[in-house]
């Protein structure tokens, strides 16, 4: 799997996700649909921050979510698909 020098852990998603989620996000539980590994969001491997954040399964690198902050908008995809939600947030 990936070495530890090229990514951050999922705790770095706390700030960007808290703009659109009412609950503290890093303790959320996630199960990988590809390798069945499970664990907290804080344990994901996060690549970025630019052009955006890509959070992957620490076991098989399957994409858990992608998040892009552009001005007053946050774009979010959950999973590996290409359908994104765009949220308006306070700049």
């Amino acid at each position, binding site marked *: 799997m990936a070495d530890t020098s090229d990514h951050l852990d999922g705790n770095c998603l706390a700030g960007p996700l808290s703009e659109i989620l009412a609950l503290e996000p890093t303790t959320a539980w996630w199960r990988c649909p590809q390798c069945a590994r499970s664990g907290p969001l804080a344990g994901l491997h996060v690549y970025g921050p*630019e052009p955006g954040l890509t959070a992957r399964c620490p076991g098989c690198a399957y994409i858990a979510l992608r998040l*892009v902050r552009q001005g007053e908008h946050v774009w979010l995809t959950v999973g590996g698909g290409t359908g994104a939600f765009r949220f308006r947030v306070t700049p």
Partner: protein
Amino acid sequence: MTSFSPGFRGRARPLADRLPPGQYPTEAFPVLSTGPTPHVPTAAWDLTVTTEHGETRRWTWDGMMELPQQDTVQDLHCVTRWSRFDTRWRGVPLDVFLEDLETAAEHVVVESHGGYTTNLPLADLLGGRAWIAHTYDGHPLAPEHGGPARLLVPHLYLWKSAKWVRALRLTTTNEPGFWESVGYHDYGDPWREQRTWGD
């Protein structure tokens, strides 16, 4: 056989005229990644081009290296605002891979090892403006920069120049790629500052 793309022997344009709006010049070559760096041996590398009818062409590494090669010097512009001038590449123009294809497709989805994708108009891969690049500054392209081979489309923001390219899929509809589906521009012209959806 080697040829040189126009401009290879240097440009008279002052650097300020070569810097698109909102960019800053850098001597560095930053690495931005969306996942673990794929390590693809050239013995296992291939490139496929598939039309909307399902016609597929395939090149192995050795097959690609037997194609007409071209050296080119290009300025790179990243949407994260850095620009790097006079980067020296060697590769095969996309015109060679796409020659005489029977297609009505106007779009291409570029697919990479690691799952990255990007979409761009087919026309932007033609006319000597795009390459499958395998050599950078006289050396085999390093994995962190997309080696063994990457797409090079320097007239668009660098996220279009997909690293670790493995397939080109010609499509009749425009299918947003990895970054295009989360707010980045479908076309990405740095001179028109087409960074994000709506620019």
